[in-house]
């Protein structure tokens, strides 16, 4: 199973296994990684699952779809590597992915 590492603002790291086909958001929620609210449960409707993808991994991800880009546009502290974690599907190729959680989702 691919391993994903979530790094909190305070530097605390959480490395967890996430099944292929699940999302990076679900990996966090199911493993109680703090900092991701995911109020809508992955419907791309709430923008409370914002993460920053580690620069080393940015090029390996599929680009944002239009709805994700539109929703992200309104996230707090948007950066070029901002993503909605519920829109990143976990694949074998993403084994080792590193994402950073933001200060706040609201």
């Amino acid at each position, binding site marked *: 199973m691919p391993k994903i590492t979530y790094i909190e603002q305070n530097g605390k790291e959480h490395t967890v296994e996430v099944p292929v086909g699940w999302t990076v958001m679900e990996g966090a929620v199911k493993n109680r990684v703090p900092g991701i609210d995911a109020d809508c449960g992955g419907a791309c409707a*709430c923008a409370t699952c914002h993460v920053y993808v580690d620069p080393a991994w940015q090029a390996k991800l599929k680009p944002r779809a239009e709805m994700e880009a539109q929703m992200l546009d309104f996230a707090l502290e948007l950066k070029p590597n901002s993503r909605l974690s519920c829109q990143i599907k976990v694949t074998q190729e993403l084994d080792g992915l590193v994402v950073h959680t933001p200060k706040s989702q609201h």
Partner: protein
Amino acid sequence: MDRIVIIGAGQAGAQAVASLRAEGFAGAITLVGDEPFPPYQRPPLSKAYLSGDYARERLFLKPDSFYAESQCDLRLGVAAVDLDRKAKTVTLSDGAGLPYDRLLLATGTLVRKLPVPGAELPGVHYLRGIAEVDGLRPELVAGKRLAVIGGGYIGLEVAAVARKHGLDVTVIEAAGRVMARSASEPVSAFYEAEHRGHGVKFLLGAMAQGIEGRARVTAVVTDRGSVAADAVLIGVGVVPDTSLAESAGLPCNNGIVVDEFAATADPDIFAAGDCTNHPDFTGGRVRLESVQNAIDQAKHAAASMLGKGTAYCEVPWFWSDQYDLKLQIAGLARPGDVIVPRGDPASRKFSVFHLRGGTVAAVEAVNAAPDYIIGRKLIAARAQPAPERLADISIPIKSFV
């Protein structure tokens, strides 16, 4: 105060557990749910989970470890059957008595049953929980005929999934248009056209009068003719589950009546989620059926139970997924609102703003997230944009805030 009992292990119940602990409550928490599952999210039930490409465990809101680490005594598969407010005790269907210092009712809703003959026949389904979807999914066989009674969100979401699976789908709706209760006319018209484009048939303005069949359903009889069917989904709305509250004498009126702190008439009893009738951000009262309301009201209820409540007056929001269309709604529309369309439905990307007394009261956005998000801000700010400017897509929506 050291014992909190929560009745209803759904979206609001799970949020309350998390919020109580986050607020520093160190006493005992018991969460009681009559379904055999830990709290789960319902939105995927009529979407990806019905479709079959979403494993059941993905529905669960929290991992099991959450309840253990939160020291939450999770009692599943048992119902609260009696509430004694004098003795401050809830009795469960297994006979257990649970004393409480504070009680949260998060009992959600029950499906509205269709009072017609034949509604109990095999092949007739309702959709509220995991068990019902697991019963409906085997019916999704290409070539079968599905009659959907009720053209609301759930009926239409199921219609979309069923078409994807190759069923012959007819939607029977009593009103003259789909989503009549919740959407504006332009949005209804757009969704009807989209569904027709995907091959769904409609019988609008038709009252279902009975369901026919011997061993199984064979047809739905309406006042506008009958619709042959191998399976039927009834989606005619829900009613708040107020039975426990009512039996204990708590005021109920289309929901358990609570104030902006989620408090009932009993100072030790609070309520949150679909089961409540609560003050809304416009100064009126409303009962909502949405994830947002369950989460936000539960957060406020948790704080209130600990004596640090703040008023709940968030702008409501909701979404619905049908085919590749995302409908996002914020605010509260009311009959009589001035409707301001923005964008061309033919582009499959448009929105409809609702103004009341010139103030933005609601927005419905189809594949138009910026309009939805800015709309939410405009509603919260009680903004009064000029309608003709709002309707002008050459003016960027962002310039309104």
